[in-house]
């Protein structure tokens, strides 16, 4: 009995090429399993084997979406696999987006089953959860030991064409399809237990999340830019040299407000980035590459804009919980309103 053939996609870090400084490498194919592929091999047992691994830089993939997708698709096609898996990406945003994108493409173009895994707050999860099956993982590679067996098990079901159960049964991120299953306890008991938790203020999980329609209507455009006050906000983690507020490089617990009155240009002497999610070199050399203080100051002097707001607001958007970001932004918004700021340029890395 022959084993199912699997192709595995991983990033430069798990491919043991390097860290952020190697995020720019283009996709390359290697024979057999690499890195976490070895753990997958163990879990697949006699049923499946990884015949090839595609290692790709997260930045290269995200900055060249079309080319990267085409390239990787061709590599996968060459192998004629029965199954394609990617990641797990945990909370790495670019990696999650890459996994979701390439899985979606393989599923659509090559018609073979696909599976990936990532943390529920990974941007890739929201983008692809209804298109591609995504196993729910921890938010860091410390969760590898749990993620791989869960992914391997579900992957084998997919490739064998077996029935996929409900999200809680199989461990994947709810994909927008409701599926019935038999729980351990009857509904009334589940309701009582849920109520007791709710009363005690303990966390509980609803069995049916109400649909949310969270779109914010666009605010009216600026009619006269020459009179407008523009403020800079960034998730790129630009901070004064030395990071006086100690904003964390990942999962920021705060944001900073930094005064740029009289500052025409950001330099490597005066500013740096606290962002730990990408190669910091370029931002450290010239922080204007992340927040365009130089251009906006010039425009202020030329009268193209009314004023560049005296403060910029900065946090690190690397693995930062959505709830935290919302909180920071709400506080920042309050400040902006008190200063009569007319519009915001928000930059992200």
């Amino acid at each position, binding site marked *: 009995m022959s084993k199912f053939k699997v192709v595995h996609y991983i990033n430069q870090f798990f491919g043991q090429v390097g860290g952020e400084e190697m*995020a720019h490498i283009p996709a390359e194919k290697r024979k057999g399993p690499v890195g976490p592929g070895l753990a997958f091999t163990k879990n697949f047992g006699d049923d499946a084997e990884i015949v090839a691994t595609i290692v790709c830089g997260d*930045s290269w993939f*995200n*900055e060249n979406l079309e080319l990267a997708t085409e390239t990787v698709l061709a590599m996968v096609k060459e192998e004629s696999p029965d199954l394609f898996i990617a990641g797990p990406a945990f909370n790495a*945003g*670019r990696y999650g*987006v890459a996994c979701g994108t390439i899985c979606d493409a393989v599923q659509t173009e090559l018609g073979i089953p696909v599976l990936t895994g990532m943390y529920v707050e990974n*941007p890739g999860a*929201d*983008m692809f959860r209804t298109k591609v099956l995504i196993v729910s993982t921890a938010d860091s590679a410390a969760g590898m030991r749990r993620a791989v067996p869960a992914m391997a098990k579900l992957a084998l079901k997919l490739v064998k064409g077996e029935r996929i159960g409900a999200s809680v049964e199989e461990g994947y991120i709810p994909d927008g399809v409701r599926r019935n299953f038999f729980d351990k306890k009857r509904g009334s008991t589940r309701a009582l237990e849920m109520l007791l938790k709710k009363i005690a203020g303990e966390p509980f999980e609803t069995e049916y999340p109400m649909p949310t329609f*969270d779109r*914010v*209507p*666009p*605010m*009216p*455009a*600026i*009619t006269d*830019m020459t009179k407008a006050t*523009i403020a800079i*906000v960034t998730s*790129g983690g630009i901070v004064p040299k030395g990071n006086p507020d100690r904003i964390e490089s990942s999962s920021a617990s705060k944001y900073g407000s930094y005064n740029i009155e009289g500052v025409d240009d950001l330099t490597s002497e005066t500013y740096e980035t606290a962002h730990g999610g*990408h*190669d910091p070199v*370029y*931002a450290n*050399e010239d922080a*204007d*590459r*992340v*927040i*365009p203080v*130089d*251009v*906006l100051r*010039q*425009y202020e002097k030329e009268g193209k*804009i009314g004023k560049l707001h005296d403060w910029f607001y900065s*946090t690190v*958007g690397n693995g930062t919980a959505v709830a935290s*970001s*919302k909180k*920071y*932004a*709400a506080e*920042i*918004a*309050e400040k*902006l*309103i008190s200063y009569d*700021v*007319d*519009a*915001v*340029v*928000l*930059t*992200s*890395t």
Partner: protein
Amino acid sequence: MVKEIERAGIPVVHICTVTPISMTVGANRIVPAIAIPHPLGNPELPADEEYELRRKLVDKALEALSTEVDDQTIFEV
């Protein structure tokens, strides 16, 4: 963050590289950036050319802020 600030009543333009994320998350005015580690720059270029590149992106951003939109819109440079 983009949505929270807009929710408070201030128009926002989001300059970012991975625009699909911005779309999913729900920003209304989006300008695609150059690259993740340097969204408004390109270290390959000599300083003056890089400045010019940045200026064009800022122009596009200001244009987005000056344009009425009904729905999520990507403003390409």
